[in-house]
């Protein structure tokens, strides 16, 4: 059996790569991809612990996460469309209305 640390390190790495994308990219489509990476990092953890502790729930949850990621992408794409329509760009740094 592979030690759980490796799974966790892998998940952390994937998550941080996704986060890196969120932090440095401006295109909303990159954002969606990065968020997908982060969600899948969580999935790795779910499955890893599921098999480590012998609990099937983690596996089922990973499935749910995949489904929710699909929903999130659907909404995200819709938001990007509206963004584009209102600002003419898909750059997430352009809309600044949500502040003080």
């Amino acid at each position, binding site marked *: 059996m592979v030690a759980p640390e490796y799974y966790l390190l892998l998940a952390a790495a994937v998550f941080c790569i996704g*986060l890196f994308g*969120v*932090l440095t990219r*401006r295109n909303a489509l990159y954002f969606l991809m990065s968020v997908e990476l982060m969600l899948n990092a969580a999935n790795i953890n779910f499955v890893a612990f599921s098999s480590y502790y012998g609990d099937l729930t983690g596996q089922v949850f990973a499935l749910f996460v995949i489904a929710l990621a699909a929903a999130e992408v659907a909404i995200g794409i819709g938001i990007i469309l509206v963004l584009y329509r209102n600002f003419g760009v898909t750059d*997430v*740094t352009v*809309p*600044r*209305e*949500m*502040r*003080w």
Partner: protein
Amino acid sequence: MVDAFAYVPAIVVLPFVSFLVALAFGKYLPKGGAFGGIAATAGSFLLSLWVLATVAGGGQHTETLYTWVSTDGIAAGIGPQEIELTFGVLIDPLSALMLVIVTLIATLVHVFSLGYMNDEGERDLPRYYAGLGLFTASMLGFVVADNLLMAFMFFELVGLCSYLLIGFHFREPGPPSAAKKAFLVTRFGDYFFLIGVVAVFATFGTASFVGSESFPVLAEHALNGEFDAWTPFGLDVGTWFTAVGLLVLGGAIGKSAQFPLHTWLPDAMEGPTPVSALIHAATMVAAGVYLVARMYGFYVLTPTTMAIIAFVGGFTALFAATMGLVKEELKQVLAYSTISQYGYMMLALGAGGYVAAVFHLMTHAFFKALLFLGAGAVIIAMHHEENMWEMGGLKEKLPVTYWTFVAGSLALAGIFPFAGFWSKDEILYEALVHGLNEPLLLGAWAMGLLAVPVTAFYTFRMVFLTFHGEPRTDTARDPHPIRWNVKGPLTVLGVLAVVSGAVNMVPVQKVLGLEGIDFLHLWLDGHYGGFSELTSHHYADLGPYSSGYIAGGEIPTVLIGAGVSLALALGGLGLAWKLYNVPEPAEHTAALGGIKTVLYNNYYQDELQVRIAQVTAGVASVADTFDQGVIDGVVNGVSSVSLVSGDRIRRVQTGVVTHYAALLTLGVTGLILVLGVLGGWFL
């Protein structure tokens, strides 16, 4: 059984509610909130009567309603180690009587205000009625207070309300200045009062008025050596108690307008006349005398304080009366008569005449409220002209006002058998019989006696100038009519001014040997109900005075005293009659020569106080600099720091998604680090 005492807090709260209502909704209420005020004070009056009846039926009541601060030994090493600051009510014969007086006068003043303020089309009526409500509530709170600290707080509230009401017409130049003066002068006295309150707490660890643990009782035990009271600098307890008594007396002197802190009161005439009636008869000015009466058990223990009270009172009685001689304005005369009459009360208290003082407080409340309301009626009729030389001949035009005013004036002048005669006579009698062995007290008595003809003279000078003779102006020939809401209160008070002396006809009892008609004596002696340590015979037992009689006995002394004071009063009245009850009266003040100028200028007391104030201006400016620079600086600094930092910090919110994400990331990282370090995950 429904217990009247359970409703005592309601007596105080009702006018306070009317204050809140008038303040919040006065604009929308008919008559600017007047009816709410009338209803509230009338309700308080009825409750007070109930309480009075319950006390008459043998009740007394004391209860702690709220414990504000309860400490265990924070008073590090100085004085008592446990101090409780509480709020509570104390109902004994004195406070029950005072409740009735205050609520009655307040109700009548509210009704009168309908005529004086509403019918005259004054503006800002909600503010006026709110002020009246708070004023009444503060005074009632003061009356029922069961300890010195609570009394002090309501005492200050009374001062604040007087400031608000005296300065009611703040758009004119005079009233704001008068209000400030009243506030500052009484505050000067209250400063000593505050120190006195702290001293009482430090000495006894309690400021309660009643009970075996009350400070007057503890003081008594301390003087007997049964209680170990704290004193500063190793002072003798007697000396220290005298000092504490004098400190508290400072507040009473300021509020009751005794020399030398009387200067605010004549200026306070700038307020609306009903307010003057309330201030002079029932609330503010009465508060000082009431305070001394309330803690009389403490004062009687220190002969020096008693002598000072008596002397100050006697001196003020004469001193203020002489200033009233030459005044030209109706309300000014009444103002000086108020100072003078409260001087009598102080004289009575200092002379050991506790009952006499309360008696005079009561009768004076009735006839002085009557006189002020009568003056208010005259002022309405005269279209707000107050100079008596512009009046004259109002007798036929204003019969109700005239007859009630005359009744009040006869009472004020002390003419038999009006209320003022009985109470003033008893004061002078007490001062005389106790003063035969005390030169200082005898001097105070002499001054009080001298003030009698002066009082009668200026009172009837006022009556004759206002109502008799020929009308001297067009306004006086055709006065403005007055309505029921003015006549009603005048009539009630007129009747009381005539008959209220009957509650305590001690001379009649002594001369005719009738027992049991000195109701007020019995009342204040706990005959009906009350606390044994707050009774007049208890005070008499503690007091420093012994009685002496002239002409070989009690009855001749009574008769001679009453005869002399009545003769003097009639003499003053007769002189006023001769000089001023003529169709075209002249001033006659030239006969006074140089004294006239002095009297006109009130003995230059104002100028003297201004001079003293200028001496202390240096200290004040240092304090001002400290206040402006350090105190305000700190406050402003705090606010600008939060303003600036708020302005900076809000820039974190850029509205850019990426920045929020970065902050979230850093936040999570920080959180993990903190939890990790605290939880030892990194070891």
